């Protein structure tokens, strides 16, 4: 039982991290119609910015604004230099250009910082673990990541549903021409949305830094999962991204945790663990396929 609770917490934490990435990706794809494969690179830039500044200054807290600013600036630069020229083009051009950006950012990072992973410590205040459910000690830092993620999700939800910017974003995703006709500077709206997505990706990257390792190529590992999340959630929907992220995060974690039990009944221990590893790595794709069979446009489709 305690194991189940701990695994559910782990699933939630992964899901919330995925949401931070998926929110930006789903907005740029849904509203701007741009496929941005370099979204994972922004996540990496956020982690590198934070890790480098934290290492230089010795303070994790100073690393946070550094990571956010680095990711935001990188995002704006990408939007300005590359994406803006491709709004009207076919998705294939966007895929090609942003794939090139992945190579560019990875090359840049290994050229500037080197290929060796960077060290990023958890801040002293958040190291150790808390036992907020008896019998389940849980790392304080992971808990903090979860809370920050939830707060950001809530703030994003309110922004989208209650503010003028949110109204424009919602309108932009369904009635692009009408929004432009009403005199809204759609190019500027796109820049804002893209920058927001970049900052969220940077936040995910810098928060994950002390848990995983900060290194070249870290963005691509999580990008595929993020695409699964937005497809499951419904492209363009932030609510969908949240639901999809939690679903995928939970499936992935619980699959890895409990799949061996499924196979142990029929196979020997070592065969079962091998099979379970294979099964849990395809589980999220199975879930995606199932969701798409039942709801071909995702859980929360945008624009009916």
């Amino acid at each position: 039982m305690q194991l189940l609770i701990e695994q559910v917490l782990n699933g939630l934490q992964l899901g919330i991290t995925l949401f931070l990435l998926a929110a930006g990706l789903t907005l740029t794809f849904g509203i701007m119609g741009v496929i941005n494969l370099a979204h994972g690179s922004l996540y990496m830039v956020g982690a590198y910015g934070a890790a480098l500044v934290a290492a230089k200054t010795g303070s994790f807290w100073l690393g946070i604004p550094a990571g956010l600013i680095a990711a935001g600036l990188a995002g704006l630069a990408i939007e300005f230099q590359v994406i803006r020229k491709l709004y009207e083009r076919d998705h294939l051009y966007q895929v090609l250009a942003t794939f090139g950006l992945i190579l560019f950012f990875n090359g840049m990072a290994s050229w500037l910082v080197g290929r060796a992973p960077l060290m990023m410590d958890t801040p002293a205040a958040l190291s150790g673990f808390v036992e907020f459910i008896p019998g389940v000690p849980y790392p304080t830092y992971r808990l903090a990541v979860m809370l920050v993620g939830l707060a950001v999700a809530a703030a994003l939800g309110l922004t989208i549903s209650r503010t003028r910017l949110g109204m424009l974003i919602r309108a932009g995703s369904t009635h692009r021409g009408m929004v432009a006709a009403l005199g809204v500077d759609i190019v500027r709206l796109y820049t804002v949305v893209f920058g927001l997505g970049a900052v969220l990706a940077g936040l995910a990257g810098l928060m994950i830094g002390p848990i995983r390792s900060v290194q070249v190529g870290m963005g691509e590992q999580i990008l595929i999962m993020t695409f699964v999340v937005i497809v499951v959630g419904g492209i363009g929907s932030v609510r969908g991204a949240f639901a999809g992220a939690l679903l995928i995060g939970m499936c992935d974690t619980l699959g890895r945790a409990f799949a061996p039990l499924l196979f142990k009944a029929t196979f020997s221990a070592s065969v079962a663990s091998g099979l379970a590893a294979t099964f849990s790595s395809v589980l999220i794709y199975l879930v995606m396929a199932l969701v798409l069979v039942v709801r071909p446009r995702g859980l929360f489709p945008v624009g009916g």
Partner: protein
Amino acid sequence: MRFKSVLLAGAAVAALSGAAVAQVKIGFITTLSTPAGYLGEDARDGFLLAVSEEGGKLGGVAVEVIVEDDKLKPADGKQIAEKFLQSDKIKLFSGLIFSNVAAAVTPTILEAGGIIVSPNAGPSNFAGKNCNANYYVASWQNDNLHESAGALAKKLGYKKMLLLAPNYQAGKDAISGFKRLYGGEIVEEIYTALDQTDFSAEIAKIRAAKPDAVFQFHPGGQGIAFLKQWAQSGLKDQVPMVVASPSLEQKIAGVVGDAAIGIATTSHWNTDFANEANKAFVAGFKAKYNREPTMYASQAYDAAKLIGAALKGTGGSLDEKAFRTAMLKADVKLTRGAFKWGNNQHPVQDWYELKAVKGADGKVSLHTAGKVLEMHADAYARDCKL
């Protein structure tokens, strides 16, 4: 007038041929990108250090090393091998880091009549029945690493252990290698994904299973992530961990810092080995690259030295028989100290226990603590008919 220009042309040709035209080309297929990119980078730099020490030669023979990144993808590795074989007419290969890439590349090269001297990957598939006269592994057979960890766990008296490794050839070799010399009870075997970097689900299972100790195999960035999360979970102070060097080598110890302290690791080499070859290597590597070498650098340096010894014996010829005769003599001092070839052309060597220690400067580094296995061969050698 005409006579003079002919003379000049002749002199120019002579000057060209005098400027060390590479006699032997070496195709170095290694992993430079992905989070495991530093493994290949260190291997490449270690190999090139040996070449530059001799001023562009190995064993007195001018060599040209052509490096390509396999991106940790078997298909990419195979494609590079085909290109090297067909368009560059390369016959001698090194650089392989990951066993899954090696498994795809090795048959391609051997079938085309090439020679491989692996600086890292030593999968079990080519160590036993399928051993080959043109296939040498300069590092270790994969199982050896983990056999030494198993022997150490037994020595430390752990009765019930939980094992984790990625779900690929080297991961399976790790688990079977560990079990071979450990002999105690295995509570559970957990296979992770090769690109996984979040181990919270696995760590929660370890907490629930309450083993005496844990053995895990996660090289490169994966290992860093695992050790950090292990320390964050609070389990580090409750459950001891035994690993082999890929999961806690010189670089990982430096990056994770305090999270490495208290973990027992085993290796065939360490920076503090006092033999002359190693002292020269460590000093040379630091001087050239301004960083500490890892085991990957030392293995590739040793591989280059072994290739050098073989080329010296053949005078630069890549005739397979002559190359093999010279190679098997292994007439060279290696950074790891004692070394000889087994009949399957994998190393027979000593294995040591290493401890992560915090220095006066606050940096964590590995110190050699004692010998675990003496002149240890691998379990597949007896199936090899060479």
